């Protein structure tokens, strides 16, 4: 669970990510909007896994559902699965280079995206979208920059001694 220090650092970044995900974009850019909340959650789950776990992921998944007008639980289930996978493999992902990390991130984002689309399909609202992998791709592209920014934030507030 989140300790008070973590609470002060992690939570604002997650809320900011949520706002970025709600920010109005022109029509053409909407299909390219990366999943900020998932990206930030993956970082924190990797960097401070003892603090940010599946429960936090689930709560933010539900918030995402409310903001996006999705079925409650649709993003939450994807988020929990992705963060769980990060928890299983975080020691390996951490030591990889940023480029290799970006590839892993792409796969993780795709898993979540497909799960969300899958649920949409089950309830009969399957969208006909061509480039459904674009958000994941953009997400993987911005991962190295996001990683550096969040790492600096974490170091500045000395969140953990290790890594």
């Amino acid at each position: 669970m989140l300790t008070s220090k973590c609470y002060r650092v992690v939570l604002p970044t997650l809320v900011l990510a949520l706002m970025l995900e709600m920010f109005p974009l022109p029509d053409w850019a909407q299909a390219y909007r990366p999943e900020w909340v998932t990206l930030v959650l993956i970082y924190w789950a990797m960097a401070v896994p003892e603090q940010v776990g599946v429960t936090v992921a689930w709560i933010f998944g539900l918030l995402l559902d409310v903001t996006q007008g999705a079925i409650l639980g649709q993003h939450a289930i994807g988020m929990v699965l992705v963060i769980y996978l990060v928890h299983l493999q975080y020691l390996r992902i951490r030591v990889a280079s940023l480029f290799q990390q970006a590839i892993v991130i792409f796969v993780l984002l795709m898993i979540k995206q497909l799960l969300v689309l899958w649920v949409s399909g089950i309830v009969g609202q399957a969208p006909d979208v061509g480039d459904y992998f674009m958000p994941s791709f953009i997400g993987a592209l911005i991962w190295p920059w996001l990683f550096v920014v969040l790492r600096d934030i974490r170091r500045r507030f000395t969140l953990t001694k290790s890594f």
Partner: protein
Amino acid sequence: MQQIFLRGPSVTLRAIILIIASILIMTADHRWHHLEAARGAIETTLIYPLRYIINIPARLFNWTDESFVSHQQLLDENRQLKEQKLRAQVSLQKLSILEKENERLRKMLSAKPKVGEKVLVAELMSIDLDPYKQQVIINKGGQDGVYLGQPIIDAWGVMGQVIHVGQMSATAMLISDPSHAIPVQVNRNGMRSTAFGSGHTGKLELRYIPHNAEIEIGDLIVSSGLGERFPPNYPVGRISEIERPAGETFARVTAEPVAHLDRGREVLLVWHRPPEITEPVEVLSQDEVKNADE
């Protein structure tokens, strides 16, 4: 103590529990709509402030835009508006005469006069939620009397209906959403159909129209009011394409919505009271008549 390995049953167990919880919540939300209240509460307490902050730049932009307009521009606009008003008034006069006449004729036919609908102007707060859905957020909610299923329109036609109500905001589904359907009729000859959303703002699909139906490109389709959700006779769209593929039972008809679904900031909420259904006359059976007599 610094933990190195977090793996182990606790994380797995928690993940499994949360995934099961998600599935339960999804079922409850989708099948039985039990979670509207919870969704409204979250929207009002946590999300609304965020939305408000996000909207500040747009508002600031609008404000500066309005504050720093030149005198000449304002005069021009004023003149244009006056002209428009005059024109509108002229057609309104005609309309009021027609309305009176219509009422008279209806009275002669001893039909109920149509009730005027109450409307309220609401502003769009956000239009791009999930890109796979066609939904908007408006800045009026439960405290203004907005209710589930309430129709929203704009100056040109029907836009959609309210699907979630928060305290100060509400989510509305546009008629172009793939899971939306609205009962319509062709204005020219009154032929009934249902217009389904396609997921694109510029396209509605009219299904179950037979090949030989009398329908033409450019025909105006209006809401028929048959679902008792939308008020009747509001414009919905214009027929843009008719295909009659051989071997299929129905024609493929598409319409273009007349409401400006992807433009504009103001919408109208309509309080629509469906016409009262007269109670069917109860027919008493012989036994009941006897009982009543006794």
